[in-house]
C-alpha cells in the first residue's frame, strides 16, 4: 500500500523536475492522495479483518445464498412468489413492497400536505386553526406510535372476518382489511396499459412540438387538454376495442378468509396511512413557507399586467414558491421512504422485514445489512437525483 502511495505521489507531480512542497498546487494534490490512501487503507483493514475473523469462526460469507430456496412465506407480493423461490426473489418482493408504499405514500402525502399547508394560510379562522392543530399534533408524535395506532384501529376496531361490514355489494371491511371486487383477468388490461404508455410518449412529443411552434409563431397550443384527452382516451379506445369486459371477480367468504377480489391488508393500510399522515404534516409546513416566501407584490404585478388568476398562480407564484419548496420537499420524500422500514413492527413485508428474515435463516448478518443499506441508498439517491434535476429546472435563472 505504502509503495503504491509513493508511486502515485511521484506520478502526480507535473513535470517531475519542479517538485516542491511549497507549491500550493502540488501540496494540495499530495495531501489529497495521502487522505485517499489513508481512507482506502482503513477500509481495507476493516474488511480484510472482518473476513479473516468470520473465516476463523467458520461463519459463511458471500452472496451465494441469494440463489438458494427461501422456503418462507410472504404475506403480500406484487410479483409471483412462493416459498419455492429463491432468497433473491424474496428480497425483490420486499424491495417492490417498499417502493409500493413509498410511491403511493409520497403522492398522497404531497396532496394532503399541500392542502393542509394552503389551509393553514386560509383567512377562514376555523380552517386555519384546524390545519395548525393537525400539523402540530401529527408532527410531534413519533411515527412508530402512529403506526401502532393505525394498526390497532384496524385490528381492534373492526369486526372479525365472519361478521365483516358490507357497505356495498362485494365490498367487505373487517380485521382482515378492505376487500373489494377486482376486474377478472382479461388481455384487455394489458392492452390498456400499453395504450396509456403510448399516450404518455405522444404527450411528451406534442409538448416539444408545441413549444417549438410557440417559439416560432407565438401561437399557443392547448397541450394540457390534448394530454388529458390522449391519456384518458387511448386506453378507453383499447378497452372498447377489446370488447369492454365487465366481469368482476367478486370476493366470497370461503373457509377462513375471503377468496377473490382485491385486498388492502391492515398492515399496508397502517403503514401507508401512518407514513402519509406523518409526512404530510411536514410537507404542509414546507408548502406554507414556500407560499409565504413569494412577495405579495408579485401577485399585484401579475394582475396589473392583466393576467387572470389561473396563469398568475401557475406562471408567477408557483414557479417562485417551488424554488423554496422543492429542496426541503426532497428531504421529506427521503424521510418517508426511509421511515417505511418501521413496517417490520406491524408486519408489513417490506425489504427490511424480508432481509431480516433472510439474514436470520442464513446467519449472514453482514451481507443482509449491506443489502439493506445498498438498496435504501439506491432508492434515496434516485429520489435525490430526480428532485435535484427538477429543482434545477425550476430554479431562478440568473443572468
Amino acid at each position: 500500500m505504502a509503495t503504491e502511495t509513493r508511486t502515485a505521489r511521484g506520478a502526480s507531480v507535473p513535470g517531475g523536475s519542479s517538485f516542491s512542497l511549497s507549491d500550493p498546487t502540488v501540496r494540495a494534490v499530495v495531501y489529497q492522495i495521502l487522505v485517499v490512501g489513508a481512507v482506502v487503507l482503513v477500509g481495507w483493514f476493516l474488511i480484510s479483518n472482518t473476513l479473516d475473523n468470520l473465516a476463523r469462526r467458520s461463519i459463511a460469507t458471500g452472496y451465494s445464498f441469494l440463489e438458494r430456496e427461501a422456503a418462507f412465506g410472504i404475506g403480500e407480493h406484487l410479483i409471483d412468489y412462493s416459498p419455492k423461490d429463491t432468497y433473491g426473489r424474496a428480497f425483490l418482493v420486499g424491495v417492490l413492497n417498499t417502493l409500493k408504499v413509498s410511491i403511493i405514500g409520497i403522492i398522497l402525502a404531497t396532496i394532503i400536505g399541500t392542502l393542509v399547508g394552503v389551509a393553514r394560510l386560509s383567512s377562514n379562522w376555523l380552517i386555519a386553526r384546524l390545519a395548525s392543530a393537525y400539523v402540530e399534533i401529527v408532527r410531534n408524535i413519533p411515527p412508530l406510535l402512529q403506526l401502532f395506532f393505525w394498526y390497532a384501529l384496524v385490528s381492534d376496531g373492526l369486526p372479525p372476518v365472519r361478521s365483516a361490514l358490507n357497505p356495498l355489494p362485494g365490498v367487505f371491511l373487517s380485521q382482515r382489511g378492505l376487500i373489494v371486487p377486482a376486474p377478472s383477468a382479461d388481455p384487455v388490461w394489458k392492452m390498456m396499459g400499453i395504450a396509456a404508455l403510448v399516450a404518455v410518449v405522444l404527450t411528451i412529443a406534442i409538448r416539444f412540438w408545441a413549444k417549438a411552434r410557440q417559439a416560432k409563431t407565438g401561437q399557443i397550443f392547448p397541450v394540457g387538454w390534448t394530454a388529458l384527452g390522449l391519456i384518458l382516451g387511448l386506453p378507453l379506445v383499447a378497452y372498447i376495442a377489446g370488447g369492454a369486459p365487465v366481469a368482476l371477480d367478486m370476493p366470497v367468504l370461503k373457509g377462513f378468509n375471503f377468496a377473490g377480489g382485491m385486498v388492502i391488508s391492515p398492515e399496508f393500510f397502517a403503514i401507508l396511512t401512518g407514513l402519509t399522515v406523518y409526512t404530510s404534516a411536514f410537507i404542509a409546513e414546507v408548502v406554507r413557507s414556500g407560499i409565504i416566501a413569494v412577495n405579495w407584490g408579485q401577485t399585484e404585478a401579475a394582475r396589473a399586467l392583466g393576467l387572470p388568476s389561473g396563469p398568475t398562480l401557475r406562471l408567477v407564484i408557483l414557479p417562485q414558491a417551488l424554488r423554496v419548496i422543492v429542496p426541503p420537499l426532497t428531504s421529506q420524500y427521503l424521510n418517508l421512504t426511509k421511515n417505511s422500514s418501521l413496517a417490520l413492527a406491524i408486519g408489513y413485508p417490506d425489504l427490511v422485514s424480508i432481509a431480516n428474515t433472510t439474514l436470520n435463516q442464513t446467519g449472514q448478518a453482514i451481507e443482509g445489512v449491506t443489502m439493506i443499506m445498498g438498496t435504501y441508498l439506491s432508492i434515496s439517491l434516485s429520489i435525490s437525483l430526480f428532485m435535484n434535476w427538477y429543482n434545477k429546472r425550476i430554479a431562478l435563472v440568473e443572468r
Partner: protein
Amino acid sequence: MKSGILAAAAAAVVVTAGAGAHAGLLDTVKSRGFVQCGVNAGLPGFGNPDSAGNWTGLDVDFCRAVAVAIFNDPTKIKFTPLSAQQRFPAIQSGEVDVLSRNTTVTLTRDTSVGLNFAPVTYYDGQGFMVNKKLGVKSAKELNGATVCVQSGTTTELNLADYFRSNNMEYKPVVIESEAEVNAAYFAGRCDVRTADVSDLAATRGSVASGAEDHVILPEVISKEPLAPAVRHGDDQWFDIVKWSINVTIQAEEFGITSKNVDEFVNSKNPDILRFLGTTPGMGKALGVDEKYAYNIIKKVGNYGEIFDRNVGPATPLKLERGLNALWTKGGLQYTAPFR
C-alpha cells in the same frame, strides 16, 4: 427492528475489533467477574423478567448453572434480552458468552452461523393454536388460514414446509416482537398462531382472561430441540457450558436435589463421589472448581426441579415432562457419564 439492525452492524464492528484476542473465554469471564447470557426478552417459563427485574425461566436457570460452575454464585451474571433477530449477531460478536434463548438446534446454525450447541435443555415441537370458536380439530383443516408468526425463527420455515407438503394455502402475518404478534392473534387479525408448543402454552397462560377459549391442535409439525449455544472457537468454554447442563440431568438421575445434596457428599457410590467432587478430578479437567457440580445442584437444582419450577404442571404453562422426562422414565433427557 432498529436494534436488530444495530446489533448486526455492531457485530460487524465487534468482529473486527476482536481480531487477535486469543485469551480463552473462561479467563475473560473470570476477570470480568460475571457471565453474559443472552435470553428471551419475555417468554414466561423460559426467559422473563418479573416486576422487580429478576429474571426467571428455564433458559435463565441453565445460564445460572454456568455462572455457579465458574463463580459459585448464581447472581454473577448479566442477562441481555434478545429478539429472535438479534440473537445470532449477539453471540457471533461476543456481546454474550452464552445464548440461552429457546433456540432450536439446526445444521445451518451449527455450521454457517458459527455456533456450537450444548445439550438440549428442552425437547419441543412446533404446533398451532386456534380459537375454539373456529371449530378446527386438526391442522389439516387450516387451508386458507391467516397465520401469525414471529419473524426470524425456524417456525417461519416449518410453517411454509408444512402447508406446502399438505398442498394448502396460507397467508402469513410476520411480526418481529413476540408481544405484538400475540396481540395481533388475540385481536383476531389471524386465525392461527404458530410457534413451539411450549411457547404457545406460555402465550395462552399469560393472557389475563379467556385462556380456555384457545386450543393447541394435536399436530406437532417439527422437531425443535432447544439448546444453549456458544460460538465456535473456544472448546474449553463449550465444555464448561455443556457439562454444567449435564450436571442437572445426571443429578436427577441419581435422585440428588438441591434439598438433599448434602446427604450425598459422603455417599458410598464412587460414581456420586466423583460427580460431586468429593473424589477430585472432574472439576480440574474442565478448569473449574472441583465442587462445581455440588454447587450447581445446591444453588440451581437438578433438571426436574428446574423444569417443575418454571414450566411444570404447577405453573401457568402446565407442561408435562413428556419427551423431557429422563431416559429412565421413557423420555429423551440423557447425559454422557461423569468419569
